[in-house]
């Protein structure tokens, strides 16, 4: 271990702010792109279901018009 104590590790030889800021932003950005991709996947599948129901409603409305003609 390069550092004597955990506090020294956190201090990063005086550059704590820059090191932890860059690591934080990096993993934050990676997290955001990953989560965004997964939630888009969920929304897309939900959208497919909505499209299915929309088709069913349109078909059903067409039937009603045929019968009422």
């Amino acid at each position, binding site marked *: 271990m390069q550092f004597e104590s955990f506090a020294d590790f956190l201090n990063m030889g005086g550059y704590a702010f820059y090191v932890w800021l860059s690591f934080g932003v990096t993993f934050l950005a990676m997290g955001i792109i990953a989560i965004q991709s997964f939630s888009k996947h969920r929304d897309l599948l939900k959208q497919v279901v909505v499209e299915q129901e*929309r*088709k069913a*409603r*349109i078909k059903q*409305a067409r039937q009603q*018009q045929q019968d009422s003609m």
Partner: protein
Amino acid sequence: MLEARELTCSKRDRTLFEGLSLVVEPGELLYLRGPNGAGKTSLLRILTGLSSPDSGVVLYNGMDISADKTGYYQDLFYLGHKSGTNGSLSALDNLSFWLAQHNVSVPVNTLFDVLEKVGLVGLEDVPVRYLSAGQQRRVALSRLWLKLAKVWILDEPFTALDVKGVHMLEKSMKEHVGRGGLIITTSHQHLSETAGEHRVFDLEYRF
């Protein structure tokens, strides 16, 4: 009662019509006929106050519309060539915003029912640009049943409508006239008897 006195209008230095006067009483359907380029659309736009004539005046209930517009616009519904709906919004949003602008409050279910009446079931929340021209026309037409306007000024309302659409529109025109409404419309297909009796006003093409 909508009256036009001595209207003159020229577009790109060609006088479309001059000294044109007409009176339309409530409970009357005026069918404006004329070849392409005769100035039908320009006349309609002048009657709605959207564009101003070179000379002459348009009166609604005896008052000049260019002076006090709010009273006239409260009773007016104008359907132009353009549908007046934004492509990226859905039919539902377009209509609810339009109603808000015209100070008409209508429960959401009525929106759905009117859209069902014009045959747009299931397409209520689809962005309008994905709809066909005829369907977009129906979204614009569905405003007829949402805002109870006395005066209907329709510019070729039947374009891009299928047979069922035309029949429905003519039936509602007949009902509107029956209720004492006033309609001025142009159309390239002759009005069938379902639209009830109507007066014809001919606009010749001037060179």
